[in-house]
């Protein structure tokens, strides 16, 4: 049985449509009369608890399935890697789950979780790290005890660390196999700089230098209650769950809370960049760093991007590059603001080598158009409606909803963000969109990175509609492929 949600008032269609015969089918779907759907976003505070030691816990029980899902989210991640040990935080996150605990071997811990049918995992991301457990309510006690042991007392067993390092090396060897990996690597190097954590990649020597002691050190920095927020969903009673957590955290020492992630210091050098790869289809990213998440221009940018290339088939780039011209299967733009520094705007596509230039040209035309002409009211309304109508789905699953609350709290998002979201979307005007496009979409400031076969790309399409000398007066920086294990240029 579902638990009633006091903050969510949904009017089911059953009560409104009635059971009498439906009138004739309207000639167009816009003419269908829909019952209203009243939805108010849930308030984080209604799910929030604080343990005696000060740790925040979000609880959202549901008894539909006999499963319990616990997620520990820690502030701190790969930005904490020392310069000569890139890969340390990632190794620490992965090895917590794989390396046993101080009292149980890795193999026995794996057996225990598997036999109990529990999914336990741990990882370190760029700015946040996590450990999670999904298990049957019937054996929650045993699973949770081992999970807490794993989070608090990881063993980082040597034999498993050796396997992890070898696996990472094997992954590295594949760095030049797929054009997508080459592109995303060079893209991040250009936008964030080689040494910024967004771009930094482990090398053979940085991985080989890692020891279990190094992992313990990183574990002490990230995985402690001072960085932690807990979220629990599934089949449990809140009172009992709070007590379980209270007991588990009882003597868990607070470490020093981690600092915020550092901002990149690189200056993007605009231009066309190319990496050679013998494939029939070129892969392209075009863009630059634009805004932070809490920027006042966030909502105009959100809608601008949807209209330009982030709104699926309805958006301009998809419509022209894909459906008009058939130049790409996937063509789009995305805006990825970061919390602590400006994140990127990026248009991307893949097209057969000879039509790479043509697709690029069309995308730049569309960027120019959204800068110079106001979007139509209809286009804007479609983009606004899409965000407003799908808004309830943001909170569809309880685990997803708590994940939002945890993330908001860890990154100090303004508390009424979700409550004012739809009003902020509605408030954006065509003039706002033109203004932010003019401010941020500066084509002559952008990097245009191409991976593919240059002799086929450079000369452009058969009909002569575009070629690579159409951009930056034909100036190109040919980037060398990098040695997969050292990342040093190969010539």
């Amino acid at each position: 049985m579902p638990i009633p949600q006091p903050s969510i008032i949904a009017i089911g269609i059953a009560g409104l449509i009635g059971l009498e015969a439906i009138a004739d089918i309207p000639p167009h779907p816009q003419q269908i009369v829909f019952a209203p759907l009243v939805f108010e976003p849930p308030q984080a505070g209604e799910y929030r608890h604080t343990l005696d030691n000060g740790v925040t816990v979000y609880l959202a029980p549901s008894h539909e399935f006999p499963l319990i899902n616990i997620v520990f989210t820690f502030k701190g991640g790969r930005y904490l890697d020392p310069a000569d040990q890139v890969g340390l935080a990632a190794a620490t996150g992965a090895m917590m789950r794989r390396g046993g605990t101080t009292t149980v071997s890795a193999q026995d811990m794996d057996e225990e979780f598997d036999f109990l049918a529990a999914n336990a995992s741990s990882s370190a991301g760029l700015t946040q790290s996590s450990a999670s457990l999904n298990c049957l309510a019937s054996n929650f006690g045993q699973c949770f005890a081992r999970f807490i042991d794993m989070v608090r007392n990881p063993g980082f067993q040597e034999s498993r660390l050796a396997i992890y390092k070898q696996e990472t090396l094997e992954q590295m060897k594949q760095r030049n196999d797929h054009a997508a990996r080459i592109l995303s690597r060079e893209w991040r190097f250009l936008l964030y700089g080689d040494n910024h954590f967004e771009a930094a990649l482990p090398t053979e020597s940085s991985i080989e230098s890692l020891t279990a002691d190094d992992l313990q050190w990183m574990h002490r920095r990230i995985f402690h209650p001072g960085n932690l927020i807990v979220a629990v969903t599934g089949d449990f009673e809140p009172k009992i769950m709070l007590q379980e957590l209270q007991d588990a955290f009882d003597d868990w020492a607070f470490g020093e809370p981690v600092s915020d992630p550092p901002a990149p210091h690189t200056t993007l050098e605009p231009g066309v960049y190319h990496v050679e790869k013998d494939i029939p289809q070129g892969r392209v990213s075009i863009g630059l760093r634009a805004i932070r998440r809490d920027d006042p221009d966030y909502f105009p940018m959100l809608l601008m991007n949807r209209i330009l290339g982030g709104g699926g088939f309805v958006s301009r780039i998809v419509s022209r590059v894909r459906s008009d011209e058939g130049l790409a299967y996937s063509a789009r733009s995305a805006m990825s603001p970061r919390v602590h520094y400006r994140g990127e705007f990026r248009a991307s596509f893949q097209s057969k080598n000879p039509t790479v230039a043509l697709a690029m040209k069309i995308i730049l035309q569309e960027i120019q158009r959204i800068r110079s002409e106001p979007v139509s009211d209809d286009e804007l309304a479609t983009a606004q409606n899409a965000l407003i109508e799908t808004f309830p789905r943001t909170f569809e699953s309880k685990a997803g909803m708590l994940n939002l609350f945890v993330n908001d709290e860890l990154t100090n998002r303004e508390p009424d963000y979700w409550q004012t979201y739809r009003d902020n979307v509605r408030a954006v005007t065509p003039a706002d969109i033109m203004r932010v496009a003019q401010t941020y979409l500066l084509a002559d400031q952008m990097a245009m990175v191409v991976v593919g076969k240059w002799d086929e790309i450079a000369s452009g399409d058969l009909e002569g509609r575009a070629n690579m000398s159409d951009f930056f007066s034909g100036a190109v920086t040919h980037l060398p492929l990098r040695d997969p294990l050292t990342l040093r240029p190969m010539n």
Partner: protein
Amino acid sequence: MHLAHGPVLVFIALSTPTVAQHVEVESFVLDNGMEFLLVERTEQPNSIAAGWVAKVGSVNERPGITGISHFFEHMMFKGTRTIGTRDADLDAEYIAGQEAIKGQLNELIWTVQYQRFRRGEIDDPWNAANDTDQMRTLRAELRELAEKHRDIIVKDEYSEVYTKLGGSSMNAFTSEDLTFYFVNVPSNKFELWAWMESDRLYDSVFREFYAERDVVHEERRLRTESTPTGKFREQFNAMFWQSSPYAWPVIGWPSDLNSYTRKEAQRYFNIYYRPNNLVGVVVGDFQASAIKPIIREYFGRLSRGEANPPAVVTLEVEQRAQMRMDAQCDCQPQVEVRYHTVPFGHVDSFALELMAEVLNGRTGRLYKAMVEGQEIASSASAGADGRKYAGAFSFRAQVKGDADPPQLEEAWYEQLARLQEEPVPQRELQKVKNRIAANAYRRLQSNFFLLIQLGLFEGIGGWEYINESPAKLQAVTTDDITRIANTYFDKSNRAVALYTRKAGLEPQDVELAALDAPTRDRVQQQVNQLLKVKDLGRLQMMAAMMEGMMDQVPPDDQAAVKYVVKKIKERIAELESSSGN
């Protein structure tokens, strides 16, 4: 610290849940034969996941039209007489006009260009660069007409209507056995879904046909031709299936993709997109009693096909001899060993699935033996793939360190022999069953995922599988696994693919990279031969000779010779240092 291995933990009770999961599905069939499956779920309020399955996929195709099921899926988003055009009659005229030109073009390509291609006069009959004058004229006409047509097309109106009204995650996919169209709508907009989906089943119009075909070509380049292993997997698949239509790729062979016309697509629609070949699935926040009248009203207007779609008659023939493929690619060295097994729902499919589970995961046999034990694999997994008409079982692994694919292949045969000769211990089997029981709940949590599973199962066998399979999997015994391991895994029933890394440029070989391609290959071959020489004196003599003759070498070839000398000297240094140790 290293801790002792072995069973230090005692498990007092098995953790199998006592209550079996059960999905309440309401199923009914309209008079026209269209079936519906409804699952009311209020746990995720305010939204409905809805979709429908056409029981048609690449298995229903034939040579000449391979890939048409998938292409068709793309065309279904192009609109109807109502959606997507400002003038339905003019629209039809333009489409007919383009169709006529394309027909003439195809005829010319299949006759004139194919013949020129067979004689070696052109490298690709489909490449527009090889067009004759007549074809160039036709192609220009086609382009002109398509551009005129665009003036009365309402671009992507199908997507626009959904987007504006809150539809999300709208998409579709095509497999060998079925085609699936789905979307999420707010719970007050079920009627929108009924309108949009029944409309495109009622009078779909295949406009922008030829631009969309280019999109599918790009999709093929993206998924198959530009990925490290895509084109080789396609070839392996074509080798593995002998008589079965599973041999060709879902996306189709390139020449077929170029060939089909709107007429062909229309014919396909008339056969396979009739209500008696369709299943609708709705999961989410609704009451069945409220949406059933809407379903009847909208989908009831579709007329039943004149006949049921033709049966897929060609069965896979029995494999008589082992098949092997040797591929060189820009990829991690790896291996796949694949066996013909049984279709979806076959009595032995459950034991095969359990066998795969015994092998998989970090406590599974493959990880323990190959990743952790012998340390020859960086990953290893097994999988049972039961399709509607036939099935396969695969072992796959990627190498670690200096290991090579044949070692992984051998290691697999050892694991197979263990399964054939020794019963799987009870506890090991129970562990796998525990996980399967818990996963039976996990896979029901999302409306959308539940929708996909119900559609898939109903499309290839029966939706009841979702409720019946957990018990059938629990009933598998160790004897069953031993028996199937001895039934389907003979040498003559297997196909083996070995992937080795294509020699690439070594980081230090800047000199080699600078050579033109034919010289590079020749020099590389020569160097490979030299690297096998172990006689230090001979190498030293060769190096001296080549250096001495450098003046007489034509300037264009000097770089190549210098490179060979460099490699000989490296080899000499290597031999000297190893003999010194």
